[in-house]
């Protein structure tokens, strides 16, 4: 491998990491601002102009807080829990295509950290491992409320992973590839997958809410019954990591939603722009389009959070196992029949 490629990928990975962190940081501010807007308040506006420095102030506060350890025999696992959550939230970004390509100094730079053959399975692998962060943290807290809440959160994540995987299978039957780069490239222009797989998209969307532990599925943080959720015993930056991981995974799951169903970096008229203005402007607009789409989904996450009340636990399980999974299987069968008929016609 030549050195230029390593440097190029290195810079790209650091940039993606920085952008993920920045987006997660400002998602916290956006959440509070949107909550305020929906409830007819002003929201945080003291730190900086219009509250723009609020995330920095929050971060500083979390760093300055006391590091509290509960009376637990598993101090090591207690620290490992938030570390797993955070690193798993950041690892998925490695396979996401942020754009098609840029031409810098005569080199063609592919805007993706790595294009592996099994990118989509990699995403699911990381997703299934991220359950450990919650489970280990909740158990190591040595607190029965933390444990109960960790159990709830992880059983919810496992249940909805099944429906999520099944909803993706219908998409895979159409695209015929697991590589996110090829899936994005197939949706050139306005040929987005959401027009062919609306049911699959809805199932995937609902499951994404459950996977990121967001309202209406945030039973893990049911304050009335379970104090503060699986991170009850956590303080300082360790709790900050759990909260931050939630926002980072919200950003990443919005990106995956956009790449899988909403065309990723594709926009109508991109051929015209590329022919008339050149490759770089076309792709920079593409990246901007991708970010505009994913910002909409982040807003959608927050919009739902401040609109819909929380489900009861049995309702959540019934929705997952008795509605979404049969629906996803029916979707697979119908997709299969339609593909078969289309091939024979």
């Amino acid at each position, binding site marked *: 491998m030549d050195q230029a490629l390593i440097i190029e990928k290195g810079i790209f990975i650091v940039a993606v990491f920085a952008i993920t962190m920045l987006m997660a940081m400002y998602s916290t501010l956006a959440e509070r601002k949107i909550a305020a807007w929906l409830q007819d308040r002003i929201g945080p506006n003291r730190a900086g102009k219009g509250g723009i420095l609020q995330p920095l102030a929050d971060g500083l506060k979390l760093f300055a807080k006391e590091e509290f350890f509960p009376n637990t025999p598993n101090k090591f696992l207690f620290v490992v829990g938030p570390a797993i959550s955070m690193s798993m939230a950041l690892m998925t970004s490695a396979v996401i295509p942020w754009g098609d390509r840029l031409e810098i100094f005569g080199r063609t730079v592919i805007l993706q950290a790595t294009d592996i053959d*099994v990118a989509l399975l990699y995403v*699911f*692998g990381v997703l*299934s491992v991220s359950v450990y962060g919650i489970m280990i943290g909740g158990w190591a807290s040595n607190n029965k409320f933390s*444990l109960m809440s960790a159990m709830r959160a*992880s059983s919810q994540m496992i249940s909805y992973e099944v429906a999520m995987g099944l909803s993706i299978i219908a998409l895979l039957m159409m695209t015929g590839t697991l590589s996110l780069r090829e899936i994005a490239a197939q949706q050139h222009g306005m040929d987005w997958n959401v027009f062919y797989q609306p049911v699959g998209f809805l199932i995937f969307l609902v499951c994404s809410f459950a996977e990121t532990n967001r309202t209406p599925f945030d039973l893990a943080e049911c304050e009335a019954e379970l104090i503060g959720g699986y991170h009850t015993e956590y303080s300082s930056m360790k709790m900050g990591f759990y909260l931050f991981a939630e926002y980072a995974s919200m950003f990443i799951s919005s990106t995956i939603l956009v790449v899988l169903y909403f065309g990723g970096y594709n926009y109508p008229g991109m051929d015209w722009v590329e022919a008339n203005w050149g490759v770089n402007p076309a792709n920079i607009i593409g990246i901007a389009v991708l970010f505009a789409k994913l910002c909409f989904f982040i807003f959608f996450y927050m919009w739902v959070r401040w609109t819909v009340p929380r489900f009861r636990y049995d309702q959540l399980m019934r929705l997952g196992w008795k509605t979404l999974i049969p629906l996803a299987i029916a979707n697979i069968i119908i997709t299969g029949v339609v593909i078969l008929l289309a091939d024979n016609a």
Partner: protein
Amino acid sequence: MITTLFYILSAITLATAFLTILSKNPIHSAIYLVLCFFSIAGHYLMFNAQFLAIVHIIVYSGAIMILMLFTIMLMNLNKEDEKNKSVLSRIAAVVSFCLVALVLLATFIKAEPQMSRYYASGEDYQSIKVLGQVLLNDYMVPFEFASVLLLVSMIGAVLLSKKEYING
């Protein structure tokens, strides 16, 4: 460099496997087993078997071990509750494991590597395209049998959980 990596990974695999057996706390055992599975996935990656590595992580670390941890955490096993198994069942376990190991060893010795025909054509035999075609063309029947087996065990699990309602 690959050799060094192999030794490091093997050391991790063996150490975590032993710690799984030796640690007193069942949850620590389960976590060591998870680490062991991860290092085995690392071995698969060194063979460039990306699909196998990822599926290994999804199935073993992501599904089986999580359910195992779940059960252990909910049952809240303590050292006092742990029953000592009788000598007979211990011997039976060792003998049956040795038999399984014998069968596996025999299969691997007798097995004929299929890679050579892909070396000639230069096709990437680790890619999911080739893997899927081989699985559904050449090994269709065993593949279907495996899926029927999974279905039967799934129905069995549902039936077991409903048993009390049938009796009562």
